[in-house]
């Protein structure tokens, strides 16, 4: 390969020189390209962040003046009558969400655990169904709730709304649960198996507790999702301007109130809608941030 001359040039040194020369020569171009792309990233980041911040700022600016003690403690009043609040909508939203969560969590987490532990055809079908359910337009869920519950029982009710909202939450909880349960290292299950534990015991004592931070985050995100759904409620709970604790009767809920009042020609009702929008946004924000903090706290505690 190398010619037999007095001092053959060392190919390693030659290449090192060539590489370092190329690296130094292209450094300016590489730095420039790096800056350009960093700029592009910042630009798109801005495009994403500006509308987000704008929405939040606008809702705060419009909604905050509506907030008062009465706003949180009184039910809605007809237009022109001062002192109206959203207490009836808060009660409706809380009752409906609690019922929906109580139904959706056990079903959803059991499905999630099953998906995480099994990979047979049933699991594949269930996973596919859950994925499809995630994509179903919420108005379709509303129609389903209307036909399945409202028509059959001949009454609009909070229960029908809870059914519809639970249906919205279910796939989110299933997939969040599956992800969290799958994240538990297989070595832990094996360690429990090797100690003579049965699969149910392993799930109860090892997999579920270990996956808890992820599960809680998933459930709270599902709750946040369910809180804001409007279309399923419009067709199932009807709306109610009076305070109603009984879930078998028509109820008010925050999204429904926002929908109905924001299209009214009366400034005081629109104002209430802005206030309700801000309230809903704050609750969802607190839930999202709180769930993350709690999950982080749990993870830290274990280390």
């Amino acid at each position, binding site marked *: 390969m190398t010619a037999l001359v007095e001092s053959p040039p060392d*190919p*390693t040194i030659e*290449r*090192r020189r060539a*590489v370092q020369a*190329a*690296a130094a020569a*292209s450094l300016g171009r*590489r730095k420039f390209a790096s800056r350009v792309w960093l700029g592009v990233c910042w630009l798109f980041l801005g495009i994403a962040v500006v509308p987000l911040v704008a929405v939040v700022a606008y809702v705060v600016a419009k909604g905050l003046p509506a907030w008062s003690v009465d706003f949180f403690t009184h039910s809605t009043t007809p237009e022109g009558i001062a002192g109206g609040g959203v207490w009836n909508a808060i009660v409706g939203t809380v009752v409906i969400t609690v019922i929906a969560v109580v139904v959706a969590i056990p079903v959803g987490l059991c499905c999630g655990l099953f998906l995480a532990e099994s990979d047979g055809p049933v699991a594949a079908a269930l996973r596919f169904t859950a994925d499809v359910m995630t994509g179903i337009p919420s108005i379709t869920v509303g129609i389903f709730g209307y036909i399945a519950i409202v028509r059959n029982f001949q009454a609009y009710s909070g229960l029908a709304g809870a059914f519809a909202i639970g249906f919205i939450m279910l796939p989110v909880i299933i997939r969040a649960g599956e992800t969290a349960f799958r994240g538990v290292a297989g070595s832990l299950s094996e360690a429990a198996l090797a100690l003579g534990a049965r699969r149910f015991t392993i799930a109860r004592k090892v997999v579920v507790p270990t996956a808890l931070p992820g599960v809680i985050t998933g459930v709270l995100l599902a709750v946040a999702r369910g809180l804001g759904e409007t279309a399923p409620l419009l067709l199932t709970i009807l709306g109610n301007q009076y305070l109603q604790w009984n879930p078998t009767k028509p109820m008010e809920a925050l999204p429904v109130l926002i929908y109905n009042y924001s299209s009214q020609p009366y400034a005081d009702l629109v104002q209430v809608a802005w206030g309700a929008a801000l309230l809903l946004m704050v609750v969802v924000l607190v839930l999202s941030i709180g769930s993350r903090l709690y999950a982080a706290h749990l993870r830290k505690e274990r280390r």
Partner: protein
Amino acid sequence: MTDASVPTPEVRSPSIEESLTVQAEQALMEPDQGNVVMTLRDVAVAFAGRTAVRDVSFDVSAGEVTALIGPSGSGKTTVLRALNRMHDTVRSATVTGSIHLGDLDVNGPDTDPTLLRSRVGMVFQRPNPFPTMSIYDNAVAGLRFNGVRKKALLDEAAESSLIGAALWDSVKDRLKAHGSTLSGGEQQRLCIARALAVEPEVLLMDEPTSALDPIATKRIEELVGELKSRVTIVIVTHNMQQAMRVSDRCAFLLMGEDKAGELIEFGPTGKLFSEPKDPRTLDYVNGRFG
């Protein structure tokens, strides 16, 4: 060769005892300090204000293998990563003291970390060939990152680095295959080839055999010995036998009272293992802890 294999009656071949004595004496002798490639003076690394390792001062000599040894938590890898500014990627990390590559101040304000890293390459614990690239593309990845476009140079570097990593014969007919088709040991040699292709002056190896089986480990160790004439090597290992087998000089680090690692002793490997100056080094190399 032929002369040595047929000893003439006049030249008596040395007895086993004599040759062993000579070997032992050679091991105890200071190897020539030679050219110093990198110097570390009072190097300390802290993460979020907590010192991870400190008081590290030693020289890396050209054409040698320098090993960093010590129990886990003693800061071996942390020191290694300071040598090519890998701590830049960790926001909370601060490196103090001075590290020089020749005349270049590694942490100097005008030092470009990318140019520095093309001169000080690195091989990691686990083989990490780029999964979307072929064997050839993996081998020349560093050259392409550094702006080398000439096909002739790329081809030459690929062949030379794969030969250097003792991988050429087994992959020369399937250079377009994916790196993931190789075995673990072959993947690690591909990573070594990838680092060699840039022709760095110093190659940092962070426990390069910890994820490999004994046979693959042996081949990497042989490779380290073959490569040191081409590139100066600094290797981190938790395996003292490995340090003894492959290195010319050793730096022994130990975790102090306050959980911060520090350099206990630095010297020629033979000396460090046979007659260390510090009693803690003696305890460690005799396997009394760690």
